């Protein structure tokens, strides 16, 4: 029979069971959700997309390891959040970007934006987007060189001689919109936009595969519907209502499939640390992202507005959390049954 006197018992506080999901499994799910878009990038731009991603992931994990080592804090690279940041940094850069530039971008994202504020869960900006803003400010030329879709760039070297093309969003700007939008429709069909046969950053081009990844995250309950629906919905609504093309629906479709909207709505704006925690707060945040994106695309000097609109809303996340609180239990009397009976 059991020797009850010599049981080695622990007496910790309840609850005594935990859900199987943990930080690492969540980050792994995000990585899995990004793989289709990465595979498409390899097909569209060549295997440089993959090698860039590997370099970026390794460098981000190295920077995180180094920071925790120097500051004598417990190591945290096992949670894979640095790997997600590494992938996302490459996803928002042109495929011709240099390896060293990606490594420096990772340094900025991990050390300045994430670790200086206390590491995972404490950063108020999305690290990958902050790195993109940093890289765009540092290397404006290389960060805006878009190769023609279907051109495989070489793995090493500066790729100075590749043919470049304008991104769809650049057609949707300027004084003579009617002509440029018509030539955009000649260059790329709506199907091209949706499938991703267009120029742009490594990971942003294929709306179809990003939506697939986003649906996977929703299915796995890694993210909720609030931010993507509010964000994409707001952009769609505004671009239909205030269309600048001859067909509002087409103008709207080119807007939501062009640029980084899908990547931003499913993978960037939903970043836990930098977005609100309540469903209602997330709706407000998503609508804010959508408004700013359309404002920047319509009135700003940039063609693309996703990156900055999310970063601006990141700064509002804490304010939204402070003002949007769940209704206290028992204070709002919802006598629904009685009301129904009457």
């Amino acid at each position, binding site marked *: 029979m059991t020797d009850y006197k010599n049981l080695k018992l622990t007496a910790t506080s309840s*609850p005594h069971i935990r859900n199987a999901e943990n930080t690492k*499994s969540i980050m792994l799910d995000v990585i899995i959700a990004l793989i289709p878009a990465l595979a498409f990038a390899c097909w569209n731009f060549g295997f440089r997309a993959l090698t860039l991603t590997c370099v970026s992931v390794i460098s981000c994990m190295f920077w995180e390891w180094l920071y925790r080592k120097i500051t004598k804090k417990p190591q945290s690279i096992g949670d894979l959040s640095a790997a997600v940041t590494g992938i996302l940094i490459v996803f928002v850069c042109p495929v011709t970007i240099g390896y060293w530039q990606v490594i420096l971008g990772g340094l900025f994202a991990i050390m300045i934006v994430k670790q200086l504020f206390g590491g995972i869960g404490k950063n108020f900006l999305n690290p990958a987007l902050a790195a993109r803003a940093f890289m765009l400010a540092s290397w404006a030329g290389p960060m805006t060189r878009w190769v023609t879709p279907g051109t495989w760039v070489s793995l090493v070297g500066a790729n100075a001689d590749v043919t470049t093309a304008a991104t769809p969003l650049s057609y949707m700007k300027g004084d003579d919109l009617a002509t440029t939008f018509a030539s955009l429709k000649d260059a790329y069909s709506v199907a091209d936009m949706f499938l991703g046969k267009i120029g742009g950053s490594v990971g942003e081009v294929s709306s179809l595969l990003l939506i697939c990844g986003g649906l996977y995250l929703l299915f796995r309950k890694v993210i909720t519907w609030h931010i993507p629906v509010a964000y994409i919905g707001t952009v769609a609504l505004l671009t239909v209502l205030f269309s600048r093309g001859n067909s509002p629906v087409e103008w709207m479709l080119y807007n939501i499939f062009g640029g980084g909207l899908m990547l931003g709505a499913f993978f960037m704006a939903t970043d836990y640390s930098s977005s609100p925690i309540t469903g209602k707060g997330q709706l407000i945040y998503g609508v804010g992202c959508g408004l700013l994106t359309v404002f920047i695309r319509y009135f700003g000097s940039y063609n693309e507005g996703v990156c900055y609109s999310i970063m601006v809303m990141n700064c509002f996340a804490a304010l939204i959390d402070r003002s949007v609180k*769940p209704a206290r239990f028992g204070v709002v009397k919802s006598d629904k049954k009685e009301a129904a009976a009457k």
Partner: protein
Amino acid sequence: MAQAFFGGVHPNDMKAATNEKAIEQLAPPAQVVIPMSMHFGAPCTPLVKVGDSVKVGQKIGEFHGLGAPIHASVSGTVVAVEPRPYSMGGDMMSVVIENDMKDELSEEVKAPENPDALSVQEMVEAVKNAGIVGMGGATFPTHVKISGGIGKVANVIINGAECEPYITADHRTMLERPEEIIGGAIYLAKMFGVDKVTIGVEVNKQNGIDSMNKVIAEKKAPVVVEPLHCRYPQGGEKQLCQAITGRQVPPGGLPSDIGCAVFNINTTCAIYRAITQGMPVVRKIVTVSGSGVIDPKNLECPIGTPVKNLFDACGGLKDGTYKLIMGGPMMGMAQYTADVPVGKGTGAMLAFCENEEQTVEDPQCIRCGRCVAVCPMHLEPLMLYQYASKNMFDELNAANLMDCMECGACSYICPARMHLTHMFKVGKQKLKDKAAAEKAAAAAKKAAEEKKEA
């Protein structure tokens, strides 16, 4: 189906291990240890001394103020009246009885001649004398709940949700003793003067629902069984009221504030036995389960049975068992010894030998917001955690920490494995301590001023 409440989690219910197994009678233990505190309120005073012989059902502990009397659960000789380890941690004055195995019933236990003719007052008195407390684990004295609720309560609810994983004691009771449940429900209806009693049962116990409906139809009882969603903490008093009536208990309030009174399935059976047989609470049905138990079972045993007897009856514990839990895995108390006895609120005894907690070193909140989405009390656990860890008392009060019912849903769902519920228990104690200290300081100041004036 009844309306749901906000939030909640859905852990693997683990009930398959025992829900097909009939309630077994435990072989009588050689000794029982009956703690003088098995209810919400001050401990009882022992009425017996070493050497006294006692019989089953004899009163051995008298309560003062809020509480319920305690009765001998076996016949035999009192061998010790001393502090012994008990389930709430630490030691408690206990009466230790050596079992003479005769199982003689005390003369104090008298069945009324015609139970159905008893007045409300007599029925409440019978409940009080039987020492009935909330058997779901809260152990609030039942006669206080009834007498305090008469006239205020329109919805009498019987809690058969049994939402904690592993536990199947109530489920088996529904299958094996439905007439006791329905009988108790009829008496509750009489006491409160209501024409309908609702039994809330999670839909994963469909055969239990059917079994009770059969008895209701036979007796034409004023009872309805309401199927509920399977969602923890559906059996929480406030969540159950919300699911059945659609109303929310106000902050700091009781179900009676919205005209509800909630009784556990086994409490209802105890009320039935108290009124029809005059039988006090001396036995308890306990589910013995968990990864550390070799042959999980539902056992009925005398109150005061050391839990190691339960494990022995289930084939013993597996090697590497590192945790014994009295109650369910979400809200139960981890025990530091297998000597603790079964009390009136013990519905389950679990042993774990696998790493169910999955604890991590240095957990870091990732702000995913899952805790906010699952909190049935509409709190923001991640914020409360920060305030509590930094002793920000004003913020804790403003964020309604005291509304927390420690159900553990936030800790369960947390992917970062933060110790949220634990921090809230500590934080609530700190708030109480601070309020007490401020009150004492104010009283001292007032006294000093009065002295000065004089």
